């Protein structure tokens, strides 16, 4: 599903990523780990075309998104779900409206939107909070709303950039379990994190970055080994 070939990202004289080669298959659950500044976020941003590589190719579903024109980027992003550390929810809109926002722009009927939003809320266990505003929710709940928004369009790929970065261990575990359930439905999930407890608990494929290079890539791995 995802292929990175000789990907380098350079900011002035600093390498954020150096000659990265990576294959992620459809339906995989992948942890991308590493210390701060290792290049995790840059790698994630390359996948949703927030950044463009200085060299190399980033293939998603057979398309090299490194060359994707800017007016086609929204189309790419609608084919994937993205979850951020700071949730990025519209504070003045309800949980329901936050989740429905993007699919409304596609001209989908209200009935279809309702069905999809309720389905997504059920997955994240927030059916009873659909009218609440993000400010009325805990951090864990806000992140679950953000996950519901990411999956509402039925994407084949979900990218989560430090999704538990702002959460306590209990909420972190809940969020990771939801991501695991989503993965079990066949959606490819890529999670960047420095939460070693979560990585060790779930035993998924672990890719370790250090100074912009992949230094380890093992199946059913842990944070350190």
């Amino acid at each position, binding site marked *: 599903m995802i292929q990175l070939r000789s990907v380098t990202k350079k900011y002035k004289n600093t390498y954020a990523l150096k000659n990265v080669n990576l294959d992620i298959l459809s339906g995989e659950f992948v942890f991308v780990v590493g210390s701060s500044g290792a290049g995790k976020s840059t790698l994630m941003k390359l996948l*949703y075309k927030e950044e463009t590589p200085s060299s190399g190719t980033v293939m998603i579903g057979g398309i090299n998104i490194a060359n994707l024109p800017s007016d086609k980027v*929204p*189309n790419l992003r609608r*084919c994937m779900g*993205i979850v*951020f550390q700071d949730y*990025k*929810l*519209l504070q003045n809109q309800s949980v329901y409206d936050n989740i429905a926002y993007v699919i409304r722009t*596609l001209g989908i009927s209200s009935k279809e939107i309702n069905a999809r939003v309720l389905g997504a809320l059920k997955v994240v266990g927030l059916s009873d909070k659909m009218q609440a505003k993000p400010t009325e929710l805990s951090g864990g709940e806000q992140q679950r709303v953000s996950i519901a928004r990411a999956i509402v369009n039925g994407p084949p790929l979900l990218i989560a950039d430090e999704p538990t970065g702002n959460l306590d261990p209990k909420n972190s575990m809940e969020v990771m379990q939801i991501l695991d359930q989503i993965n079990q439905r066949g959606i490819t999930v890529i999670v960047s994190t420095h939460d070693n407890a979560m990585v060790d608990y779930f035993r998924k494929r672990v890719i370790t970055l250090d100074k912009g290079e992949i230094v380890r890539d093992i199946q059913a791995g842990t944070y350190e080994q």
Partner: protein
Amino acid sequence: MNNSKQTIKKKVKKHIPKDWLLELRIVYRIMMETFNDIKRTGIVNLVIITTMAAILTIFGALFRTTLSISAFAHELGNVLEISVYLKPSANPESVTKRIKKIEHVQKVRIITKDSSWKDLKREIDIPDMENPLPDTLHVKVDEPKNINEVFGKIKKLSVVADMSYAQELAKKIQFLNQVVKTTTVFVVIIVAILTITIINNTIQLVIQSRKDEIEIMRLMGVSNWYIKIPLIMQGALYGFLGAVVALVPLNMVQNMLTNVHKFFLIPAPMFASNIVIITMFFVGILFGAGGSFLSIKKHLQV
């Protein structure tokens, strides 16, 4: 490249149920976004619409005045004629034919010496004597600016004894026409600059206040045009509403000018009121949307 574009399109479309109401729903939701944006702008809306109304009133009033001045100038131009006094030996009909061939000559009217003499005798008490008046031709020129040229050409004819026309009046009418044209261009430029600047700054404020929201929309894959169109429509709507408010003072100006036309017995230009109103709405909407578009180009990085 084309292949990859097609693949993306197919993948996106796969997630969208196909039905004929799709485009209508998008239009409806964009309109709702526009109204929500306006709602969020709050009391500032009133300030913008009032300012727009003031600018458009000035524009409409000046435009309507220029139309009236043009009508006055045209009417004065209509009465402006060259009087050509012929030599006794001249045949008025043949001279008329020759003059009609001159460029810019619109109409030639023969006033025979007999009819002139009759008119004169009717106006003043003159003793019986031989008619001393010459045959006269009244030559009408298409535009006041061409009168001098036509005058020169007629003067060269050997059968012409003397000629006259209101030279000063012709110059004034020509000057007035020039002033009207220059003022119109000047006013349109000023209105364009003011309108675009006001809308540009307003939309900039809207973009600043919604910076985070726009960033989220962008990251979630909301189309660039879906983000931009409501902002452009917001600018256009300010122009439209400004024009609606401007109708009230403009109507007063139009009534006043109609009275001036009635007083001088000069007909108002055809459809002047409608032309001014349509132009005012067009200018308001166009420059409103234009100002918004420029602001988006400058401040919205999507």
